[in-house]
């Protein structure tokens, strides 16, 4: 961050390439569209770099980027919906795309699609994005206890659903 504040060109490159792919993956999860995801990534880093010089990062970079990507993705989705007026609404972007009918992943996708958004989001943040509970709590601006509760409830659903019970077999 110090190097960024000093305008070190290589620091811009390092931060961008370190977080680009995770931001892109996240943006794609929220928008469900590759082009929109790229736009979101561009806007995200544009927003981030506009804060320099004089920016102090008080949380982890992941915690900082997550809500930015999320909010920009929601805006991108709304924009795309407006452009698609009159057309059929697409699938819920945060739900996994249907694939491999009859496979365990397809079953998992089905159960995940039934989860409340807040529970699914926490589950993915923890086990797909690899974020710590404290990071998730900070990124979502909720208490850590809420994160634990949502995670527990999501896993409880997976454990008790016949389609995903096998993941929890001893």
């Amino acid at each position, binding site marked *: 961050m110090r190097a960024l504040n000093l*305008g070190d*060109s290589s620091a*811009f*490159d390092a931060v*961008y*390439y370190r977080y*680009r792919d*995770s931001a*892109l*993956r*996240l943006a*794609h*999860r929220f928008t469900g569209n*590759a082009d929109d*995801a*790229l736009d979101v*990534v*561009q806007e995200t*880093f*544009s927003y981030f*770099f*506009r804060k*320099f*010089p*004089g920016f102090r990062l008080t949380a*982890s970079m*992941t915690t900082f980027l*997550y809500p930015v990507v999320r909010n920009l993705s929601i805006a991108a989705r709304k924009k795309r919906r407006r452009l698609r007026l009159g057309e059929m609404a697409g699938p819920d972007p945060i739900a*996994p795309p249907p*694939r491999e009918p009859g496979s*365990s*992943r397809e079953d*998992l*996708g089905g159960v*995940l699609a039934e989860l409340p958004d807040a529970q699914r989001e926490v*589950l*993915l*943040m*923890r*086990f*797909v*994005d*690899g*974020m*710590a*509970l404290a*990071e998730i709590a900070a990124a979502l601006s909720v208490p850590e206890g809420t994160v*634990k509760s949502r*995670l*527990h409830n999501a*896993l409880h659903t*997976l454990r008790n659903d016949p389609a*995903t019970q096998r*993941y*929890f077999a001893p």
Partner: protein
Amino acid sequence: MSTLPEQPDEPIISDTLRQDLKDLYSFTASIPAGFDDSVLREAKSTFTQRRRFHSRVRWAIGGISAAAAIMLVALRLSSPSPDRISEHPVVMAIKPGDVDRDGKVDILDAFVVARRLHAHAPIDKAWDVNGDGAVDQKDVDRIGTMAVDISGGVR
């Protein structure tokens, strides 16, 4: 995003479930040529503009502060403090006819001279405003005339 070790008080899932979750949400985008350069070029350009702006703001604030400091110093020099007055006492010229030395000639000055004359009290030779060598009623009249003289302003 960073991979952090699971904390002891949080649920643990099987490797299979973790892998299937990752596979479900895997996304490998083909990033268009020039995309990265475009993002980084814009970032660096914005940074340069913002740094220039910050620099200008700092200069402006510095300039304003310097101007304010100069004005304060100038004001302080032009309006001497009581200490400076005591170091360099100002000698005020006493106007002819200003008997009570209040800086102006008014009817009170004439009244003071008249009373002193009437009481035969000691008188100051400086009160001889008509310059005839004596302080008498003519000087009282002269001071009175000076007090009501409208050519120098009404007193």
